[in-house]
């Protein structure tokens, strides 16, 4: 991924956090022509095409099976607009909560002398490891009608948000954490010795350094929330117009042999995710140049 972006010097990477903030030296962005690079580039492009681009292309292609009017019709049915509204809305909420909470968790894990830090550090990854349908079942047991905690989020929109929070937790934490670890403490000490207060140090020194990672993690969390199926399918109740998320709507269309409708709504999900990923990437480049 990073090879592709630095050698071609074009196109925003989909994983902005995977590489360091864009280098200030413009010379490195010029394409390098060498046999080894060309081979690597060819290999990377082929791999990406086989694994990602061609399947995604097929989705977009299928969405046009019945022409533009068929596509437009499929994404403007009352079911589709309602489910897209719910999914995008819930994903925005989840991404913002993750932005704040994820950064705080990363901070605590890196900077605070927390007892049992290693245990917490491992726990963060569990939502990735668990099959999401199991996550849904677990959430339903704890926050369902028989909740031992008397907290019932099931079969309501709040349940969708809780499930999405669970599965997207690791993204911001895992993108911000390494940057915080690498951060040069001497900069902070220098600022402190010059009389800067902690709030100023955070705002002027730490934040500019971790904003790219925060943006990248948030974008990933958003994209993941948009596509989530397993954890929401049990806890949401799937009531059309109320708690049915887009992925379940897509599944329904497939089950009703309406492939075009399914592909059309999927295309919208892809587009929105792409806009958010690219948008945050641009924002972060802008921030990096300015900072």
């Amino acid at each position, binding site marked *: 991924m990073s090879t592709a972006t630095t050698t071609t010097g074009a196109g925003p990477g989909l994983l902005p956090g*995977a590489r360091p903030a864009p280098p200030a030296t413009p010379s490195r962005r010029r394409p390098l022509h060498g046999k080894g690079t060309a081979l690597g580039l060819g290999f990377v492009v082929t791999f990406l095409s086989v694994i990602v681009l061609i399947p995604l292309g097929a989705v977009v292609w299928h969405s046009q099976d019945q022409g533009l009017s068929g596509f437009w019709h499929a994404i403007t049915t*009352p*079911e589709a607009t*309602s489910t897209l509204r719910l999914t995008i809305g819930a994903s925005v909420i989840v991404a913002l909560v993750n932005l704040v909470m994820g950064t705080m968790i990363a901070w605590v894990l890196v900077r605070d002398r927390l007892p049992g830090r290693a245990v917490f550090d491992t726990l963060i990854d569990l939502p990735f490891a668990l099959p999401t349908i199991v996550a849904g079942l677990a959430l339903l047991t704890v926050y369902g009608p028989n909740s031992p905690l008397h907290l019932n989020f099931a079969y309501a929109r709040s349940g969708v948000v809780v499930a999405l929070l669970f599965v997207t937790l690791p993204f911001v934490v*895992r993108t911000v954490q390494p940057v915080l670890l690498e951060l040069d403490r001497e900069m902070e000490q220098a600022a402190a010795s010059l009389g800067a207060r902690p709030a100023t140090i955070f705002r002027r020194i730490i934040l500019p350094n971790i904003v790219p990672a925060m943006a990248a993690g948030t974008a990933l969390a958003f994209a993941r929330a948009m596509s989530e199926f397993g954890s929401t*399918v049990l806890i949401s109740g799937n*009531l*059309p*117009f109320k708690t049915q998320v887009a992925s379940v709507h897509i599944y329904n269309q497939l089950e*009703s042999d309406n492939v075009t409708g399914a592909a059309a709504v999927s295309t919208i999900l892809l587009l929105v995710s792409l806009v958010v990923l690219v948008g945050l990437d641009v924002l972060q480049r802008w921030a990096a140049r300015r900072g």
Partner: protein
Amino acid sequence: MFTTARRTIALSAAALAAILALGACASTDASTDASGGGKTVTLSLIAYSTPQAAYEKLIKAFQQTPAGKNVKFTQSYGASGDQSRAVASGLPADYVAFSLETDMTRLVDAGIVAPTWNTDEHKGMITNSVVSLVTRKGNPKNIKTFADLAKPGVDVITPNPFSSGSARWNIMAAYGSQLKEGKTEAEATAYLSKMLHNVSVQDDSGRAALQTFTGGKGDVLISYENEAIFAQQNGQDIDYVVPDDTLLIENPAAVTKTSKHPKQAKAFLDFVRSDAGQKIFAQNGYRPVSKTADTAGQNFPVPSGLFTIQDLGGWDAVATKFFDPDKGVVTKIERDLGVSVEK
């Protein structure tokens, strides 16, 4: 980020291993073909999810018979529509069983099942059941008929008829019961709207809906009699009612044209249809299609107003009229309800 990369690699490796394992299965199958003769053959059984327990017992019993001595099985269970689509797109299958006739028709259209699959005395069906109403122990809301589901304050659970083809039996049972009581089609549609208004959860499958209900949500679950019996056999604290006016559920099975071992596959289907096979289905809560099968230990009351999907025009007509994702009667009802819910 390094941990993420490592995890991604680990996941990809796992996926690759799974694919290789699948490939290995396929190749073992091929090798038994090549050896041929009196060697063991492996049949691929593709079925919808609910009769899994019954099929495991059926296979064991079949292997005790002379015809099934050297026959092994690979078994796959899943949502009826998904399984049917998978076979239509090329998943190798020798024996297929679905919850809905339309899933079989798809394979006939794809040239995988012979059009003569439904010409035996039971029209291709191997099990029956009836749409029933599962309630809490002691039936505290006193639910007896489908009409009771439309009363205010009754919390109804039924799977989403668009994601679960088999949930369409439930909706059609509710609708048909009203016609059976002498209502007009318009009145039956109005009833359906009231009933669906009381539905608080629409899971993606029958099993998920059962789980929702046993998890404490809802006053009544619309389900198949065999699922209610399954839940009781598993010690769930529920009761169920078979309404007087309800729909007969019929589940088809067939041998594929593309089978490499048609003789053995046919022998298995014959065994499933035999009284011995039908008895195993009965023990698992399904109503046998064979009139002479032993149903000892099971209570299968015959409802006075039982009707079939043919009485409502057959599945092809019903699918178009009620469940077209754009213009279907149920689609429209959910839209109308949805607009009021969304506010």
